[in-house]
């Protein structure tokens, strides 16, 4: 089981590394969206500090969503997905591997970049640490839940816009607890509770999401 998951992860990572422009484009999207806010609302440090958790988290949500169609679309186009569906390993297991690979490519760079962008918003050191930690805990859930949407919209007309319609409402709990953790640190309450709930969402999301995703993929392949 572990061997097949590792094989899927390795394959997806290798493919992603050969098309680095996709990853970098999503990252720059994240940076640009975050940088637009100070230009839009003005450079007062107090205001920016209050906005920072929400802005960074919403931008992370959008950046993750931008890279979701890539999760299955290429494999679907060249027929790899059908071969994977025929493989003796459960399709959900393969999906699990692909979700992990997606997170490594799309989620982890956001986690590493967010503290740097947080400095633009005049966040204190402890808030920066919690921001990175909350993204580290929360972004796997985004990849997991997003996989369901990516599988449902596979090969559908106007898939990209539809994907955001389906996935963004489901992302709301992650957003609330993720941004809430940073907010709680800023107001001196401690982020423990929010981070625990975020961890629960991630464990639940990443564990359960592969099954509906696999079911949706089978429907798309019919």
């Amino acid at each position: 089981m572990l061997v097949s998951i590792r094989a899927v992860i390795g394959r997806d990572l290798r493919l992603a590394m050969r098309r680095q422009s996709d990853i970098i484009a999503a990252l720059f999207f994240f940076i640009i969206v975050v940088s637009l806010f100070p230009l839009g609302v003005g450079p007062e440090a107090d205001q920016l500090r209050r906005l920072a958790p929400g802005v960074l988290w919403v931008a992370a949500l959008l950046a993750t969503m931008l890279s979701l169609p890539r999760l299955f679309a290429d494999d679907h186009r060249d027929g790899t997905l059908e071969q994977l569906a025929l493989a003796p390993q459960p399709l959900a297991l393969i999906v699990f591997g692909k979700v992990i690979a997606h997170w490594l490519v799309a989620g982890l760079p956001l986690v590493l970049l967010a503290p740097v962008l947080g400095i633009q918003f005049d966040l204190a050191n402890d808030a920066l640490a919690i921001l990175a930690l909350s993204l580290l805990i929360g972004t796997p859930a985004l990849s997991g839940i997003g996989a369901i949407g990516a599988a449902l919209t596979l090969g559908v007309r106007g898939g990209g816009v539809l994907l955001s319609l389906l996935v963004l409402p489901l992302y709301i709990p992650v957003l609330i607890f993720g941004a809430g953790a940073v907010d709680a640190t800023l107001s001196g309450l401690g982020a423990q509770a929010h981070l625990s709930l975020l961890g629960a969402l991630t464990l639940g999301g990443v564990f359960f999401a592969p099954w509906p995703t696999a079911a949706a993929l089978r429907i798309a392949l019919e």
Partner: protein
Amino acid sequence: MSERVINWFKYASPQTFYPLAGKLIPWFWALAAIFGLAGLTIGFLLAPTDEQQGEGYRIIFLHVPASWMSMFIYLVMAFWAGTGLAFNTRLSGMMASALAPTGALFAFLSLWTGALWGKPMWGTWWVWDARLTSELILLFLYIGFIALQAAIDDPRRADKAGAILALVGVVNVPIIYFSVKWWNTLHQGASVSLTKAPSMAAMMLWGMILCALGCWMYSIAVALMRVRTIMLERERHTDWVRSVLGEKE
């Protein structure tokens, strides 16, 4: 098999369900009209004026039933979607897609009437409160479901994809509800609950229950009408649809 055993699956096929739905629709319309009129009469003419909220509270006679229906219809829709996915029946998926627009309508009505009520009572059209937010997300979920089904041309695939989305949404609804509840809240708690005596006058309660029944009957009637059109559209190549349409012409 003896004839006394009722065949529950007889009406699971569109061919037999179509005439049955046609027969039921007038009854549900009649019930909807009776319950609705009775509820509104009690609500607007007989129920006492609220001590604190004045006459403005009367909007709850539409607001509360609409909110109830929006949540209940989502559950029913997910139930039909799940049944369709599990047993691969044609009619279940049609029922789910027939219910979605009515559910979305009620979610929208609930938000709209809530805003009209909130302006005089809270002094604002909208607050980011737990219930308002989760109702708004429920509307988004309905819209996502409808949009997904509309984007897929093959109706069987649309049904199945929609079913997965509806089931994922049903798991997510309580999570969303509690997450927004812990995040921020202003909306008053429910005035009606099954476990304790309601904190409102009996007359108001009756008005509300009758209105809710009226909305319920209306939903059934409209969903049946919609499912009849969906059946005709999807089964247009079959003989029974030709004969049904032939009779009318």
